[in-house]
C-alpha cells in the first residue's frame, strides 16, 4: 500500500504543471499583476486547463474528462498553491465535483475541456459541512438575491447557485458581479447579485444536497493541497534565504534559534503532506472516512500554511515586510485559506461531532 506517497504519473504531472507555472507565472509576474486591473490570468488557466489537461482530471473519460482522479487533481492544487497562481482552479474544482453528482453532461464536458470557467456561488468562508446560504430565491426559472465573498466568480463564465434546496446554473453575464477588495490579492473575491436572472435547474432535492456536499468536500481537499504547496514554497524560500543572508559575520541560518524554528516547521509540513495525501486518497477512492479526512486536512493544513507564511515573513526580517518581496502574497493567501471552508476551530468542532468527542 502506498496510498500516502506520490505515484510516478503524479510526479510527472507535477513537473509539467510546475514548468508551465514557472514560465508563465513566476512570482514577479504575480506580484506585478496585483497592482493591475486584471488579477486573474485567463490565458494561463486556458493553458493549464486545456493543454496540460488539469481541468478534467477527476472526470471519467465517458463524461469528457481525463479519467484520472482526485489524487492527481490535488497534486495540481499543490503546484497552484506553490505559485500562488492567479487561476480559478479551486472554483472549477468545486464546480466539477458538483456537476459529477448531477445528470448534466454538456457543461461538465466544456468545463473539463477548459472551454468555460465555472464556480460555486457560495461565500468562501462557508464552513465545510454547513448548508448553503439562503440569500438567493428561485421563482419560475429565475433567481433573485445576493451571495457575498465568492471565490473565482470574477473570471467565471457560469455560476452554480444553490437556491431553495435546488442547484441552478446561471450565466455569469446574467448576474451582477462586483469585485471585493480582498485580503488575498492573488485571488480576489466578488459579491454577486441576481435580479430575476434566467436559470437552469441542474439538480433538485436530495440530489442537489449531494452535489453541494460533493463540491464542498472536494474543495476542502483541494484547498489542503494548495495549503501544502504554499507552505512548501515558504519553507524552501526561507531556508534558501537564511543560508545566504549574513549577520554578525555568519549565515543567519547557523543560529540555533532560527534552525529550530525551521526544523519545527519542517516537521509540521511532513504531517501536512501525510494528512493532505490521505484526504486526497480518501476522496479518490470514495472511502467512508472522506468526511473526517477532509475536516482533519483543513484543521491541520490551515494552521501549517499560516505558520509557514508567518515564519517566512519573520525569518526574512525587514525585506519580508516589503511590498517588493513576494512573502506577503503567500501570507495573505494563507490567512485567507485558513478562513475559507471554516476556520480550524470550526473544523475541530465538526470533527468532535463526527467522532463523538
Amino acid at each position, binding site marked *: 500500500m502506498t496510498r500516502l506517497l506520490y505515484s510516478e504519473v503524479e510526479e510527472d504531472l507535477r513537473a509539467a504543471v510546475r514548468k508551465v507555472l514557472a514560465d508563465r507565472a513566476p512570482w514577479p509576474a504575480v506580484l506585478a499583476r496585483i497592482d493591475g486591473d486584471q488579477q486573474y490570468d485567463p490565458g494561463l488557466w486556458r493553458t493549464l486547463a486545456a493543454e496540460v489537461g488539469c481541468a478534467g482530471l477527476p472526470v471519467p473519460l465517458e463524461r469528457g474528462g481525463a479519467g484520472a482522479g482526485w489524487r492527481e487533481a490535488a497534486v495540481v492544487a499543490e503546484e497552484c498553491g506553490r505559485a500562488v497562481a492567479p487561476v480559478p482552479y479551486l472554483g472549477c474544482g468545486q464546480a466539477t465535483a458538483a456537476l459529477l453528482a448531477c445528470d448534466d453532461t454538456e457543461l461538465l464536458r466544456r468545463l473539463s475541456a477548459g472551454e468555460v470557467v465555472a464556480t460555486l456561488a457560495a461565500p468562501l468562508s462557508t464552513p465545510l459541512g454547513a448548508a448553503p446560504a439562503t440569500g438567493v430565491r428561485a421563482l419560475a426559472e429565475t433567481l433573485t438575491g445576493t451571495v457575498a465573498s465568492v471565490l473565482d466568480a470574477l473570471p467565471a463564465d457560469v455560476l452554480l447557485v444553490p437556491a431553495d434546496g435546488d442547484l441552478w446554473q446561471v450565466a455569469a453575464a446574467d448576474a451582477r458581479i462586483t469585485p471585493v477588495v480582498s485580503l488575498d490579492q492573488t485571488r480576489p473575491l466578488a459579491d454577486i447579485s441576481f435580479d430575476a436572472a434566467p436559470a437552469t435547474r441542474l439538480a433538485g432535492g436530495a440530489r442537489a444536497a449531494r452535489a453541494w456536499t460533493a463540491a464542498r468536500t472536494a474543495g476542502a481537499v483541494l484547498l489542503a493541497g494548495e495549503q501544502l504547496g504554499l507552505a512548501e514554497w515558504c519553507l524552501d524560500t526561507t531556508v534558501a534565504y537564511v543560508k545566504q543572508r549574513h549577520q554578525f559575520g555568519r549565515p543567519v541560518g547557523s543560529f540555533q534559534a532560527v534552525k529550530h524554528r525551521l526544523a519545527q516547521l519542517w516537521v509540521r509540513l511532513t504531517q501536512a503532506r501525510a494528512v493532505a495525501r490521505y484526504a486526497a486518497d480518501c476522496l479518490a477512492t470514495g472511502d467512508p472516512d472522506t468526511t473526517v479526512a477532509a475536516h482533519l486536512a483543513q484543521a491541520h493544513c490551515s494552521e501549517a500554511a499560516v505558520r509557514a507564511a508567518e515564519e517566512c515573513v519573520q525569518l526574512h526580517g525587514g525585506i519580508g515586510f516589503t511590498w517588493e518581496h513576494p512573502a506577503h502574497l503567500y501570507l495573505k493567501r494563507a490567512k485567507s485559506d485558513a478562513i475559507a471552508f471554516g476556520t480550524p476551530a470550526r473544523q*475541530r468542532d465538526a470533527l468532535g461531532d463526527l467522532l463523538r468527542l
Partner: protein
Amino acid sequence: MQAHELAARTRDFLAEHDPVSTPAPDFLRARFDAGLAWVNFPRGLGGLDLPRMLQPVVDEVLAGAGAPDNDPLRITIGLGMAAPTILRHGTDEQRRRWLRPLWTGEELWCQLFSEPGAGSDLAALATRAVRDGDGWVVSGQKVWTSMAHEARWGILIARSDPAAPKHDGITYFACDLTAPGVEVRPLRQLTGEAEFNEVFLDDVRIPDAHRIGAVGHGWQVARTTLMNERVAIGGGPVPREYGLIGVLARVWRDRPGLRTSGGRDELIRLWVAAEAARLAAQRLREQLAAGQPGAEGSAVKYAFALLNQEISGFELELLGDEGLRYDDWTMRRPTVADWGLRTPGYRYLRARANSIEGGTSEILCDIIAERVLGLPREVAG
C-alpha cells in the same frame, strides 16, 4: 522469492516443527536456522536475503498457527540496535556467535553509550579502553542503561586514544556483563521506578575478539546503531486513536461530567495533532517499504514526544481530583514502561523523558536543520 512462496515455505517449516508441542526456545532456534527469523538478513544468519517488507508474510503465518514469538519488546535493543551493527560491522565469527541467541532472546543486549558527562554530546565520552596484550582493559561509568540488570551483553563505546580528536579516538566493543569488574546499579527515576541502570566498569577485561569494527572507528560504528535506533520507531501500522490519545478519548467519551467547552477544543486539537503524526509515521513506513529512505524518522520521534507530553498533561487536569493521586511510588524494576496499566500521573511524569531519551528534541531539531534542510552547523564550542 514471492510472498506466496515465502508463505508456503513458512507452512512447510510449521509442518516439521509443531508450534504447540515444541518448547519455545527450540522452536525459535529452528526458526532462525530456517532463515525465517528476519528474512532481510543473510542466509545462514537467520534470513533469506529478502526485502524487509516480506517479513510480515512469515509473521502472519506463524501467528495464525499460535507459534511462540521472541517477545520483541523485551529484546528491542538487541533487535533494533545491536543486530544491525553486528551485521554491518562485525566479523563472520562475531555474527555467528551473537546473532542467533540475540534473536531468540536467550541473550539480552543493552546499550552502554551515555555517560554522566556525555549525553547529547556523546563523542565527549570518558570511559577508557587501554590495550593489554590480546585484549583491552576498560574503566568508566555508563548511565541510562535499560535492561542492563537482565542483559548478558552490552554494546559499548570507549575512548581508546585520548590524544586523537574526540570523534577519532573511540572504539566499539561488545562487553560481557558477567565479566569481573562490571557492576550494575538501578537508577531510580522521577516516576519512582527504575527502568534504567548505572553501569560501573572497573578494569573490565574485554578480549580483542569482542571489538566491533576497527580500532579508532567506534564513532562510525555507533552511528549505525543510532541511525537504527531512530528508524526502529517504525514497526507495523497503528490504528486511529492508538496510544495515549485513545486513553484520553475514552475518558472523554465515558465521563461526560468531566467535560468543559474549552476542554473540548483542546481535546480535539490534540486528536488532530495525534492523527496527523500517525499519518506522517504511516507515510514514513510507506517510504521505507518503497526503498525511499526518509529523514522523517526524526520528525516522527520529535512529534510523538511533544504529543505524549501534551496529552498526558491534559488528561491529568481533566481528571481533577483523581489527577492528584498516584498509584505507587515504590521502586519497581519494569522490563518496559507500562504506560497503559499505571495511573494518569505516571503517564504525565514518564512522558517527560520522551523528549530526552533517544536524542533530545533539541538535538533532533539540529539534525533536521542540518541534514534535511542543509543549514550550517553552529560554530563548535
